[in-house]
């Protein structure tokens, strides 16, 4: 049975169908009377044509009735139920709609003219129409709608309290029976759904759907996967296909509805990176920040303007002349904050297809000074001639050139007595021996992301280093040492003793020949064991080498931190580098920044991840107010103990932007910390998985793929295919037939005069 968009028009118009019959009857009453002489001839004609004339008149009347009926039906906007409508029979049918709400669904590059502006709008429209169709269908129709990000959330803790036959609800619209009366409510609820800023893929939602549908005893079950089918979301396409296959094997009908714009890929730029690129985040100190913009489109983009803000205040922005198609362009800019505390840096692009990835924020925790621990291996403290002097002078030259660093020179035992986490970096200067607790503390510090630098000079014993620090490659020290050797220089072969390798720390010295390096003379160094070949997985990198090819400075990752071993002395004992050579200062400061980067870079969770705040039990209060973006809504969380003495308060980040956490210490002082929450930049890649690849991936999985546009040829297509156009053609055909029959019935025959 077709349904009608305007049934009242049908009921008001149907009586009009009787009009031709009434007109015919009136005409019968309004006959003109003619006194006729040649009656015999007329009677003969009537006898001959009576049946034919009667049939033609009946046919004519029927055609006229049909034309008016067609017109009335067309006005009532009939539509034939779509395939889904035919599918809706008696019995109970469960429709589970999974709606992609990842931020790529906010792509507003094109619309199909139905009033929507984004892919998510199209998806929501699809859901609305499915609900409309269900409301008009026979049988008991149930629907549940869940966004990817909502389905991916852990089920509520009180889920166990629900009835055994009701699976935990992780859907925006919990399962409900669709009735015409409930339709407005469902529409209102759908209207409140908005896309998230997450990169939530279909897998978690499909898992939740499988749980729900597995426990459902409906006569038929239909899963609607409404998505833009971006390549990024289907990275693990095989896993997604497996989930779909399991559902299909379980008898669930799969309907894949593609909401993405069918036109070519739109232009979308993404702020992919915004992070500290060195320097010391201390008050008054210039800190370089690196910004990277990715062009996710298929054509280059020119004249990209980047708006920059520091703590909400605009500052001179950047302009990138061109970003090649698919390319990444990085630029650096400097920030300097006069006050300590958390400072917010924002980079924002001009509006494009997807808005969510146009903004990226970074929090810079600026201290008055960054403490650097310098472990002096000289038990006597050699004053201005020792290693510590030359290093601390390089790290903190004086008030005229603020570096933001505050070296603290301590003996080796301090490693086990001080809280190493408070130090930006730890330098060990020719330490003869470390005890096990000291080594353990040092390793723990490095493993947690700290940076450690070893200088090995005359006091360092190769055997001791190998056994306590290198330990066959599992310890902190990057290489096994063979012992001190002199650097033999052939007088006939001029050239610098130092050779700069490819490493960010020494980038400033690389390239053309540097006269500052030419003046560096290395007389003696600790040689690496002969035949040592580092394992590729160890990740060793050289910073500097000697002219004979022996390594002088080697970096090794350790846990989340980095360890650098410089196989000579810091003081001008075995070399003259630190004696009045500016490159010494530069390299040491760069090394300090490089090693401390991991510790200085504040954690920047992505939307959908947890924003966690660690509190000190007995010092901090347990109530934390989180001010979350975009509107600064306050969420109060109570911190819970995670381990001895440590409390944790956390929320889930639902939108990109700075999350401000405020709490009070037990002494009454107010504390604040800012955490930058950003979107996953990969979601800004609008490349589609493509129909062919999707079909290949889902080979063997019974499913039906259709685009949102083809599913809805017009404003109510999902509720059925509109019959208006076919009906109009039919009316036209009926009217033509009516004219033909009229002609055949001699109604159009001209009354010509006969020639006698």
């Amino acid at each position: 049975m077709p349904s009608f968009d305007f049934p009242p028009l049908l009921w008001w118009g149907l009586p009009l169908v009787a009009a031709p019959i009434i007109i015919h009857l009136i005409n019968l009453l309004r006959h003109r009377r003619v006194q006729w002489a040649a009656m015999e001839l007329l009677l003969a004609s009537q006898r001959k044509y009576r049946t034919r004339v009667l049939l033609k008149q009946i046919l004519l009347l029927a055609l006229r009735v049909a034309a008016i009926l067609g017109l009335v039906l067309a006005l009532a906007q009939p539509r034939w139920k779509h395939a889904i409508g035919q599918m809706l029979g008696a019995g109970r049918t469960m429709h589970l709609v999974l709606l992609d709400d990842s931020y790529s669904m906010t792509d507003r590059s094109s619309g199909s003219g139905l009033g929507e502006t984004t892919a998510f709008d199209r998806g929501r429209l699809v859901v609305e129409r499915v609900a409309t169709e269900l409301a008009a269908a026979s049988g008991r129709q149930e629907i549940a709608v869940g966004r990817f990000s909502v389905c991916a959330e852990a089920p509520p803790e009180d889920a166990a309290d629900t009835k055994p036959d009701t699976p935990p609800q992780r859907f925006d619209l919990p399962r409900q029976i669709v009735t015409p009366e409930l339709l407005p409510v469902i529409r209102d609820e759908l209207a409140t759904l908005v896309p998230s800023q997450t990169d939530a893929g279909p897998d978690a939602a499909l898992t939740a759907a499988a749980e729900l549908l597995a426990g459902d005893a409906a006569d038929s079950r239909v899963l609607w996967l409404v998505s833009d089918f971006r390549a990024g979301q289907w990275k693990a396409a095989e896993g997604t296909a497996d989930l779909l296959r399991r559902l299909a094997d379980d008898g669930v009908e799969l309907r894949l509805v593609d909401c993405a714009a069918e036109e070519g890929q739109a232009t979308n730029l993404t702020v992919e990176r915004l992070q500290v690129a060195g320097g010391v985040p201390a008050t008054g100190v210039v800190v370089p920040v690196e910004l990277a913009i990715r062009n996710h489109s298929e054509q280059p983009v020119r004249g990209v303007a980047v708006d920059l803000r520091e703590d909400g205040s605009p500052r001179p922005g950047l302009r990138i002349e061109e970003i090649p198609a698919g390319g990444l362009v990085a630029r650096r800019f400097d920030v300097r904050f006069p006050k300590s505390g958390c400072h917010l840096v924002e980079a924002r692009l001009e509006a494009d297809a997807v808005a969510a990835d146009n903004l990226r924020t970074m929090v810079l925790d600026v201290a008055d000074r960054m403490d650097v621990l310098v472990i002096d291996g000289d038990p006597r403290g050699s004053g201005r001639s020792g290693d510590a002097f030359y290093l601390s002078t390089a790290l903190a030259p004086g008030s005229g050139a603020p570096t933001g660093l505050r070296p603290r020179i301590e003996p080796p035992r301090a490693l086990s007595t001080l809280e190493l986490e408070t130090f930006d970096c730890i330098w060990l200067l020719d330490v003869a021996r470390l005890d096990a607790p000291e080594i353990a503390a040092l390793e723990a510090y490095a493993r947690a992301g700290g940076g450690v630098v070893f200088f090995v000079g005359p006091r360092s014993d190769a055997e001791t280093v190998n056994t306590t620090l290198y330990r066959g490659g599992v310890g902190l020290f990057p290489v096994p040492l063979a012992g001190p050797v002199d650097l033999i220089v052939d007088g006939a072969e001029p050239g610098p003793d130092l050779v700069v390798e490819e490493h960010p720390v020494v980038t400033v010295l690389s390239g053309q020949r540097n006269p500052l390096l030419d003046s560096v003379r290395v007389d003696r160094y600790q040689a690496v064991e002969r035949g040592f070949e580092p394992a590729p997985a160890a990740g060793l990198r050289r910073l500097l080498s000697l002219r004979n090819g022996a390594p002088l400075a080697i970096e090794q990752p350790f846990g989340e931190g980095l360890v650098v071993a410089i196989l000579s002395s810091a003081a001008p004992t075995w070399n003259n580098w630190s004696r009045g050579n500016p490159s010494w200062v530069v390299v040491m400061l760069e090394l300090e920044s490089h090693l401390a980067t991991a510790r200085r870079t504040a954690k920047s969770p992505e939307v959908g991840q947890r924003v966690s705040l660690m509190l000190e039990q007995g010092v901090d209060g347990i109530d934390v107010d989180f001010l979350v973006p975009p509107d600064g809504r306050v969420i109060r969380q109570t911190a819970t103990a995670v381990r001895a003495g440590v409390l944790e308060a956390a929320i889930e980040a639902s939108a990109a932007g700075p999350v401000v956490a405020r709490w009070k210490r037990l002494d009454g002082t107010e504390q604040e910390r800012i955490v930058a929450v950003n979107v996953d930049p990969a979601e800004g890649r609008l490349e589609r998985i493509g129909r062919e690849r999707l079909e290949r991936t889902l080979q063997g999985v019974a499913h039906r793929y259709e685009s949102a546009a083809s599913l809805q040829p017009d404003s109510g297509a999902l509720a059925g295919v509109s019959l208006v156009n076919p009906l109009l053609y039919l009316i036209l055909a009926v009217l033509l037939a009516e004219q033909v029959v009229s002609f055949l019935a001699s109604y159009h025959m001209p009354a010509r005069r006969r020639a006698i």
Partner: protein
Amino acid sequence: MTPASRRYLHPEAIARIARLELRARAVVEGLLAGLHKSPYKGQSVEFLQHREYVRGDDLRRVDWKVWGRQDRLYVKEFEEETNLRLALVVDGSASMDYRSGPLSKYDYAATLAASLAWLALSHGDAAGCAVFDDRVRASVPARTKRSQLTSVVEVLETGHSAGSAATARPTAFQPVLRSLAETLPRRGLVVVISDLLGDSEGLFAGLQLLRKRGHDLAVLHVMDDDELDFPFEGPTRFEGLELPEQIACNPRALREGYLAALDDFLAAARKRCAAARCDYSLIRTGEAVDAALVKFLSRRSTAGVER
């Protein structure tokens, strides 16, 4: 000219036909010698034939020269020029009342009859008239006197008005024509003016009878334009003027069949008139009366010359 005469005698028509001669196709008896061939043999200047003498023949007509040569008695027969005796038989039945223009079929037929009568009388021929439907309603025998035209017109008037009193006046040709055959004293030209609707078998039987009596025959078939073209549109109820039937119909739907039946009717009339050696002319009421008369007389004149 009486008012009735004015009604049926159109001056224009009379002026146009006055130049023509009314000729009988065959030999008819007439009073105007030289103009009309008489069917009767008698004394005349123009020898016709010899025939054997039979008892009772006038001995003055025996050709004694032939007797002298052949010893057999023959009488001489001469062809005499006689005046025409014109009998106008006008259909006054109900079907003749139909009109689509200013003249009904009867009016038109009466005009034709009056015009022909005037023509005959002006040539010194005798003209008589009868109006009939199912029987003769009024008649006047053929005369040559000057007041005869008035009598003819009066018959045309009274014959139709007498018939109008009846609600339905069906046409019955056979009894009418039979009575005419019996009452017409001498052979002459009988002109039947009618729409021929009704008793068609009786018509042709009557014509055959008149023919057998030696009358020259002409049929002027008067049909209204509507009857020939059937131009009706829109729902129409046709009520029979002579028949009691009614037909409510869309005329266009029946037009094709009607015209086919009309063609058959006209073809049959033409054919059967020819079989009775009777001049047949179809005249539509939309045609001017004078034109119709000219056409009729020209046709007869041509036919007479050919013979």
